[in-house]
């Protein structure tokens, strides 16, 4: 009966919609971007634009690099040399590659120096590290979260705590993973991830960029002050969110209500734009790069433009152990954790953050 009840229930999902203005000193837009660490896909849509400006194009081409390293022993990320070279000097992110958050052991390094291990029960018991049960494990605890604060450990490398962690990861239960790594360095250090992990077959990768021009696109009419929309006046934030997803999936929105295949259409009221530029960057993208892109898009309206608004959407890795900050993230049925900015020509913005069933409410 419980199984039947669960099947009948729709998976819980949350959509947080905020509106504010970039110029206000209490605006949290930068903070929320910086707190979302593991970004897989960044897309922006600019109506009434056929070609990207030189600045935007070069920015988009500069959203990497990131690195891929196979079979990296986990203890390499807790050595004092790694912490001093990368974790303390800039922001270093890492995420295990091709590991499923609900089934496999998964590791993530956050820019604040926290190493998050999401381990299955057997591995957790074998490592002997101290952790807590996963929030989304169900009645039978099958997953454990072990947070390791590298900044705290590095304060005293002779401490028993550091010795224990080091011994657990190096000798008691040595774990190896394929990792995606990226580092935003602050300063002029010469060291690079490529040279540091050269003995582990590290490869440099660049995010994949796809640009297209959409013709005769029906776009919803929005008013920055009306998050809920107005009947006959403007569309609501959730309607815009659904519409944007359809645009990204290349869904045909010119359907009649009696069409057999699909009745999906653009929310009303809407206007047709002759052309719109859609650009997508896919890879392991640092929040710092997204902040720079957001700033550049903010300044799109410094000169008068035909477009009333533009959007910037960011999707997180479905198998990341965290969503925003250190909030635990689980997969359940979709593993989605994403956010979307709608930037208006008066510098008001909407920020939409969406998560699935195995997530806390976005901040």
């Amino acid at each position: 009966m419980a199984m039947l009840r669960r099947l009948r229930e729709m998976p819980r999902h949350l959509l947080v919609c905020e509106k504010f203005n970039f110029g206000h000193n209490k605006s949290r837009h930068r903070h929320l971007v910086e707190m979302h660490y593991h970004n897989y896909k960044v897309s922006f849509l600019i109506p009434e634009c056929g070609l990207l400006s030189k600045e935007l194009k070069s920015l988009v081409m500069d959203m990497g690099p990131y690195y891929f390293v196979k079979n990296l022993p986990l203890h390499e990320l807790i050595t004092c040399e790694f912490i001093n070279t990368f974790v303390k000097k800039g922001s270093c992110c890492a995420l295990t590659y091709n590991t499923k958050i609900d089934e496999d052991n998964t590791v993530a390094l956050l820019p604040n120096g926290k190493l998050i291990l999401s381990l299955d029960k057997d591995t957790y018991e074998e490592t002997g590290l101290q952790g807590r049960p996963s929030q989304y494990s169900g009645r039978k605890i099958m997953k454990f979260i072990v947070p390791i604060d590298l900044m705290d450990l590095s304060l005293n490398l002779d401490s028993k705590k550091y010795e224990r962690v080091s011994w657990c990861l190096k000798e008691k239960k040595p774990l190896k993973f394929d990792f995606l790594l990226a580092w935003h360095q602050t300063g002029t250090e010469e060291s690079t991830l490529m040279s540091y992990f050269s003995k582990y077959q590290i490869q440099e990768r660049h995010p994949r960029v796809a640009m297209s021009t959409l013709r005769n696109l029906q776009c919803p009419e929005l008013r920055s002050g009306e998050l809920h929309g107005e009947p006959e006046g403007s569309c609501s934030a959730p309607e815009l969110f659904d519409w944007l997803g359809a645009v990204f999936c290349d869904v045909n929105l010119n359907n009649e209500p009696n069409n057999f295949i699909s009745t999906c259409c653009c929310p009303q009221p809407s206007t047709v734009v002759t052309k719109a530029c859609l650009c997508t960057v896919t890879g392991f993208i640092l929040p710092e790069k997204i902040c720079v892109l957001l700033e550049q898009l903010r300044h799109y309206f410094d000169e008068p433009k035909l477009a009333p608004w533009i959007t910037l959407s960011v999707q997180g890795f479905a198998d990341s152990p965290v969503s925003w900050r250190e909030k635990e993230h689980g997969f359940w049925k979709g593993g989605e954790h994403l956010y979307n900015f709608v930037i208006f020509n008066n510098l008001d913005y909407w920020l939409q953050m969406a998560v699935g069933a195995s997530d806390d409410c976005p901040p």
Partner: protein
Amino acid sequence: MPASAATYERVVYKNSSEYHYMKVCLEFQDQGIGLSSAQFKQLLISALKDLFGEVGAALPLDVLTYEEKTSSAILRVCSRFLPFSLHYLVIVGI
């Protein structure tokens, strides 16, 4: 430039999505069977009819995208009918 509406507002929508979306793929034992989008949709409707009768066959279902080569599609269903849709998709073998 339009006047700015600078007041902060935050709304949390819980389970408010009118629709759910599914990416599905139909696999046949024999390769080389090509279905048009209309045939694909008809197949889904007849499966719903077999399982849930006329009411099931009338469930709102949109095939948002369809790729003939792989028989894969993105479907849109009303959220309140999601449990039925999940049942029939499992049974049809998608």
